[in-house]
């Protein structure tokens, strides 16, 4: 096979694997106070923001990289990374989409994310983050009419400092674990959402993350605040070009739901998973945490994790307000040499709090999948309930599936239920589908989508279809 054909073939496997040749402004390589000041300075941040970063960095220097996770990886040299990379054309921020570098628009078009106002047709507001900066937010005006703030984190720091100051780091403090603290020190951009009291956000809000530059870590920070009685549904999607080296992605996402508010957060993660031999791919080490601060509040995480060489994350809910509800719906798929150690934490603090965990893990090829979850009901959380269901589906006999549920119940009036199953796709099922005219891949896709149905149903309509296709594509070539 000549090299061009090889390239075409590999592109077929991961269609988001192209990179865009664009001129970048980068911070000097390495991690130190000067680099942090560089980031803060280029973003024209106020002093309090720089102080936040430096405080985190002080803390970071004392922390040790954790090592308890199942998927091991070669040591990351944090001095050998770029912590800031932005397309040059962003230096003088474009005022509208029309001023954007056409190359950027082209990139997003290739990814199926039309940023231009045609996006109106889809009725979804999109914030697009390219490497370290947010490049465009659509539908801003329409949202503003209702008092909704949906903008990049950098812009929020400038324009809404009172909200950012109050809530940033309130769920994931700067003193948190290694990667979260690193993020607090060097985060570059991300999305900011504020939904005012009693406003139901009229459209899906969506952020699209794209890693483009090489040797660059991506550290986004997302903050979503749903004020009393409000509702928002938010979706993030991610892709990256194919590169031989591993790239680090360590985002922090904080959600805050006040009294009677609801946040629905969905993720379709399709970072580059590495090639068939396990070379390259993204390290997806993300901290996501939601605080149900008010009474009757609700936070629901839905994730479809198909990409990344290693996925290591536990989107969590802290159920502080009485009667608050936390949900976690997850599909995690690993194929070839991918590894995942993922799950959730449900921390019940308030009375009558409820949580539900539905996790579907699918492993194929030589991959390894771990569900790890914590349900913690405190002594004060009377009448609280948790229901957990963890199902694993194995394809072939070279992959692994593991489930480690940590259950702590310190309240006699509360109740925890845990169910788990492990199954295999049987040859008989495949034969039955083949006999009805489905080829092997169509059959696998159908069976797997059936297995994941409860989770797919949670996704917003527009994305459920995409996610279904993605589930099929990620498992291509895994049977027969």
């Amino acid at each position, binding site marked *: 096979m000549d090299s061009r054909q090889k390239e075409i073939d590999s592109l077929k496997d991961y269609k988001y694997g192209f990179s865009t040749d664009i001129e970048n402004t980068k911070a000097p390589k390495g991690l130190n106070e000067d680099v942090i000041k560089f980031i803060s300075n280029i973003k024209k941040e106020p002093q309090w923001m720089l102080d936040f970063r430096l405080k985190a960095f002080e803390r970071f220097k004392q922390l040790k990289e954790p090592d308890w996770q199942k998927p091991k990886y070669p040591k990351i040299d944090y001095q050998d990374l770029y912590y800031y990379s932005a397309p040059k054309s962003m230096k003088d921020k474009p005022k509208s989409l029309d001023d954007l570098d056409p190359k950027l628009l082209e990139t997003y078009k290739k990814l199926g994310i039309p940023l231009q106002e045609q996006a109106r047709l889809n009725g979804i507001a999109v914030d697009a983050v390219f490497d370290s900066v947010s490049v465009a937010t659509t539908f801003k005006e329409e949202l503003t009419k209702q008092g909704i703030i949906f903008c990049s984190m950098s812009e929020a720091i400038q324009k809404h400092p009172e909200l950012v100051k109050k809530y940033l780091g309130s769920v994931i403090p700067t003193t948190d674990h290694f990667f979260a603290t690193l993020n607090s020190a060097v985060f570059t951009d991300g999305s900011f959402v504020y939904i005012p009291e009693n406003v139901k956000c009229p459209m899906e809000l969506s952020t699209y993350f794209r890693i483009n530059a090489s040797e660059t870590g991506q550290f986004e920070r997302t903050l979503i605040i749903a004020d009393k009685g409000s509702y928002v549904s938010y979706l993030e999607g991610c892709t990256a070009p194919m590169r031989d080296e591993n790239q680090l992605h360590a985002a922090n996402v904080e959600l805050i739901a006040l009294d009677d508010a609801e946040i629905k957060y969905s993720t379709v993660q399709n970072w580059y998973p590495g090639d068939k031999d396990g070379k390259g791919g993204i390290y997806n080490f993300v901290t996501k945490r939601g605080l149900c601060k008010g009474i009757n509040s609700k936070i629901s995480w839905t994730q479809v994790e198909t990409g990344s060489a290693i996925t290591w994350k536990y989107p969590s809910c802290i159920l502080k307000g009485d009667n608050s509800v936390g949900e976690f719906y997850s599909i995690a798929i690993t194929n070839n040499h991918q590894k995942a150690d993922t799950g959730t934490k449900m921390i019940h603090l308030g009375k009558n709090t409820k949580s539900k965990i539905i996790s579907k893990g699918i492993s194929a090829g030589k991959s390894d999948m771990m569900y790890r979850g914590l349900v913690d009901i405190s002594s004060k959380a009377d009448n609280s309930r948790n229901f957990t269901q963890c199902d694993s589906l194995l394809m072939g006999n070279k992959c692994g599936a593991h489930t480690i549920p940590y259950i702590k119940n310190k309240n006699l009036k509360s109740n925890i239920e845990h169910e788990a199953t492990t199954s295999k796709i049987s040859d008989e099922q495949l*034969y039955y589908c*083949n006999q*009805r005219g489905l080829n092997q891949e169509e059959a696998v896709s*159908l*069976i797997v989508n059936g297995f994941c149905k409860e989770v797919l149903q949670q996704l917003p309509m527009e994305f459920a279809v995409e996610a279904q296709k993605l589930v099929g594509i990620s498992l291509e070539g895994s049977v027969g």
Partner: protein
Amino acid sequence: MLSIENLKAKIDEKEILKGLNLDIKPGEVHAIMGPNGSGKSTLSNILSGKKGYEINGKVTFDGENLLELETEERAHKGIFLAFQYPMEIPGVNTNTFLKTSINAIKKARGEKELDAIEFLKLIKEKSAELKFDEKILNRQLNVGFSGGEKKKNEILQMSILNPKLSILDETDSGLDIDALRIVSEGVNSLRNKNNSFLIITHYQRLLDYIKPDFVHVLKNGQIIKSGDFELAKELEKVGYEDFN
């Protein structure tokens, strides 16, 4: 349409079919009767393309070497097997499965795929024809279905896919009279000068409703006798043991 010459099949070193010959022309209904272990299911599995058999002999379907085709390619060409034990597929809605199936076949044939509305119309029409309760189609494929429901569902799929050659593998076993009626009506409604059937059964009962053109007795891996419907009656009287 289907021609089987000297078909031999082994599984795990055990010889099951020992030189079977059979010819089915367009529009014909053939019944194969035989005792347990005579090779009836093996025959239907080999025709539909189940893997795991060591096969010798020649099988052609519309002039093409059937044994070289993948399982799904045989389905695309119009071979349908009503399973003796239909598989459960959790989470997959029966309607979705049917639509995926019919569109996979249409696509392979280069025909236009059905949209949701066309598909629902077809389903409604066919279930009414078979007096089949459509509610079952909103349930997960075969999950929690009774034995009879599973078999009826197979027949509904058959009538929707309208295959050239339908193989019914002991579809009648364990069915009550009502279900038996649905199965036979399903077959009779598809019967025309192009569609053929291979009905595998233990009992004469189903054949009373379907009236096959030919009856074959399969014993010990070979067809030992062929005849018309009268042969089935004779079998019922004498039993397999003493039939030679």
